[in-house]
């Protein structure tokens, strides 16, 4: 049994209560949701908060709904909820793809989208997915709510724009017609952190060319979408030659580190390979979604 350093614990009863508790306990308090990142870090004594504020009673944040042109996901929605959602499968298959390879069922039953995004682990899949889907993070604090783009929300490894006395409460994904998306990850073993992963979202115009595209990479040192790829793809008809060029650009854009999961050139190769794969799948899905609408 690995034993964390001593800490105090309190259960929040509402979002407002959680914010008040954060305010009261100050800098050495941490919010715990699913606990699958924070608790292991505490057991290894890498994290030593004085206070744990448990927000698992905040059922008000556990929802997933299509609201006009936006999919709204409460911060406490569990990975399992996302994985099993038919709306998500239909609108954002990239999320289903990613959730299928996030950890294992036990972790997915507890882990939340809010926890994943706020942890901002560089090998975390949903950050990439949210970047690709141009999600908006809704953050609430004593002064009210802020809406942040992923670029503003996600500041780098383990760092977000959420202040100590704020809480991420919702993630919003804009729904685009004629779109497809996909995610693929390489891991040494199911449940291991990604060696590398890539996600893509593609929207096709009425002429069959790519009208909108975003590509993101996980665990290879890039905290943004691969804008270089977007510039090359938009306005073009999807072809294998185009995907190859996109893969090449992605491998140049990333900045991976060598570790036990692999050397730098392998990870660059994966950025290339996986970018091609997810673009292929996203275009295929987008085309299918176009034909569905026509029917």
């Amino acid at each position, binding site marked *: 049994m690995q034993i964390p350093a001593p800490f105090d614990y309190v259960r929040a009863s509402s979002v407002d209560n959680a914010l008040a508790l954060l305010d009261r306990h100050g800098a050495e308090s941490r919010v715990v949701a699913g606990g699958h990142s924070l608790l292991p870090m505490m057991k*290894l004594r890498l994290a030593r908060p004085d206070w744990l504020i448990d927000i698992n009673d905040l059922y008000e944040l556990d929802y997933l709904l299509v609201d006009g042109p936006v999919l709204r996901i409460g911060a406490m929605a569990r990975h399992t909820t996302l994985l099993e959602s038919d709306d998500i499968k239909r609108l954002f298959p990239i999320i289903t793809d990613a959730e299928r390879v996030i950890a294992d069922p036990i972790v997915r039953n507890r882990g939340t989208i809010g926890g994943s995004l706020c942890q901002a682990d560089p090998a975390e899949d949903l950050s990439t997915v949210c970047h690709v889907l141009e999600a908006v993070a809704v953050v609430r604090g004593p002064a009210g709510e802020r809406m942040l783009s992923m670029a503003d929300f996600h500041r780098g490894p383990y760092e977000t724009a959420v202040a100590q006395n704020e809480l991420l409460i919702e993630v919003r994904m804009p729904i685009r017609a004629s779109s497809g998306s996909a995610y693929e990850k390489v891991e040494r*073993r199911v449940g291991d952190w990604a060696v590398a992963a890539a996600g893509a979202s593609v929207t096709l115009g009425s002429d069959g060319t790519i009208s909108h595209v975003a590509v993101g990479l996980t665990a290879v040192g890039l905290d943004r979408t691969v804008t270089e790829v977007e510039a090359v793809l938009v306005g073009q008809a999807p072809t294998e030659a185009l995907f190859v060029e996109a893969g090449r650009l992605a491998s140049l854009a990333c900045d991976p580190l060598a570790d*036990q999961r692999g*050397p730098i050139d392998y990870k660059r190769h*994966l950025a290339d*390979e996986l970018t091609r794969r997810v673009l292929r799948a996203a275009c295929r899905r987008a085309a299918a979604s176009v034909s569905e609408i026509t029917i």
Partner: protein
Amino acid sequence: MTILEDRPTNPAAGGHDRPIGHGRMQRKEDPRFVRGKGHYVDDIVLPGMLHGAILRAPVAHARLVSIDTTEALAHPKVLAVITGADLQALGLAWAPTLSMDVQAVLVTDKVRFQGQEVAFVVAEDRYAARDALELIQVEYDVLPPVVDARKAMDPGAPVIRDDLAGRTDNHIFDWEAGDKAETDAVFASADVVVSQEIVYPRVHPAPMETCGAVADFDPIDGRLTLYETTQAPHAHRTLFAMVSGIPEHKIRVVSPDIGGGFGNKVGIYPGYILAVVGSIVTGKPVKWVEDRSENLMSTSFARDYIMQGEIAATKDGKILALRTNVLADHGAFNATAQPTKYPAGFFHIFTGSYDLAAAHCTVTGVYTNKAPGGVAYACSFRVTEAVYLVERMVDILARKLDMDPAELRLKNFIKPEQFPYANKTGWEYDSGDYEPTMRLSMKMAGYDELRREQKEKRARGELMGIGISFFTETVGAGPRKDMDILGLGMADGAELRIHPTGKAVVRISVQSQGQGHETTFAQIVAEEIGIPPEDIDVVHGDTDQTPFGLGTYGSRSTPVSGAAVALVARKVREKARFIAAAMLETRPEDLEWEKGRWFVKGDPSVGKTIAEIAMGAHGTVALPEGIEGNLDAEVTYDPPNLTFPFGAYICVVDVDPGTGHVKVRRFIAVDDCGTRINPMIIEGQIHGGLTDGVGMALMEFIEFDAEGNCLGGSFMDYLIPTAMEVPDWETGFTVTPSPHHPIGAKGIGESATVGSPPAVVNAVVDALAPFGVVHMDMPCTPARVWEAMQGRTRPPV
């Protein structure tokens, strides 16, 4: 009783096992495990019990400058802080290892590996004990470490074991087997010679339950009760007596339910000794249970062999000879558990299943600044490394000769008429009939069809590999004339008592860690004396209740203890004959046995059951001269030889050419462990071993950085396989009984761990053949496979 249906996993497996004593019955121990009622060391709570925690070294090699325990002792819940200096004063700072070396219980002079034990805190609860570790101030003078075993013998390499008098280098032992001159001569005249460096990287047994102990020293009568996670309670009792000075009759070692051992729980760890010292010092029971990182970083590892292999053959594929030089990384203390004569265990079984003209091996053991050990699943006796070497070399030879690897193996097998077979390094293989086993595995796999599929896929640029391994194990150590550990012969005892009502208790010296002893041993007795297994209680794991014996490791329980149990049951059966004769007023030689009953020859209606005889023995029957009034017996079994189980494994993999990811698509395992007792338990053992083998082949690796930091200190970094990484196992069997074992059984516990890694690696290398890959070392992670495809294979160490 529930007998499960025989359910072969692959229709081609066919076959009819004739198992022993009610065959495929459900395990008697499982009701408590599946209901969460197992009772492990950490479940033991004694009145007034305190808790210990170990402070461990943060660096791999450092002079200990000072330890200040003042602040820790001031913690309100801390009762004692024990340091190396305290132990030195008691003469307990160093303890003997199972390989005639010594190991520091707590550091006195120098840290020799990261995670080494530095101080021990005893507190009122385990939280306080853990917190107090941070209050101990230690000053280290960091030294350059020896991390790469290849550099351990370099002139000028730091000397790790300066505690040993006169020591000027990191050399532990040189050992050899076989005839060097003869082997060199065969190599010199062979048509074909291929060489390959093959590394079996350091892995860890990683049992689900980590190691721990509860020590309860009674200061009034000087009695020590020690609850321990141990696979060998009797050997531990004797060693504790030798080290601590507590007389052996005052020591009781209890090994309750054990949550997996795999060799990890053979050795005596400092934590066990510290729990005892803590109990002596405080006068109260002390519990110590290590956490996962402590288990992975400080307890016994496995493998870590760097092998230079060479194989010689004629150009038409007759294998002539094998030779190898091995560099063995033993870590900071030589704490492996090997029979005294064999510092490299049974590595000299590396001649495998082939009829060779000559063979020679040398093994050099060296110290490095890493955790000690070398005892693990299949096995401490280094058979795993040996089989991996030969099975990889045969595949490399097949590639060189452009021969099918199955065909090359079939051509070179030892023939059935050659058994018992004396190999070139001193073993006598007891029995074997290899070709039918190999053919069965090929039939189950659809081997020719797989090769056709592979050819088509290659033409399309897809990477599919088929890997074969045919292994011969040597298990059931061992004859006392050849084998001992620290002077203790490797025999096992068994005691059987039949109660007056015909129910029985059998007491054994080996200790289950999940192998199903409570069922298997009851089945052996049931077969021999004809009462149902449900009526036989198997007692093990408590030195006060069981006869002496060396314990469970190296697949020795069935070959040694199983033989003891069969023999003790036969002894009881013979005694029953005399008592039955008295009861029936006839002569013993006029009686005939049928399961559970002696009856009068020619008149089967007149007879006595075992239950009737037991009641008679304890009752008022006038007993014959020399027969005591009970139906009990005991034996100590000294095996005449080891047993040599074998098997044919075929693995099919698909490799993603874009990512290097390996998917094990199929795995066919045909095992021959001689007479089969409970086929369900055998299959369970095989499933576990295959999973372990796939883990080692694809992902498991205890890696160190240049400073000697262990990079595998948690399950985040040390990967073990899950159900997602393994296919549905397809198992089959053949039966070639051991001629010297009372019921013909051989060991099975480690066969699959021995046999599966080469099958998986052979399959991966086969898949990568289009890239010119001849060999790659484990673990076959996506990155390493991709590097191999780029022509950049590299050893893991």
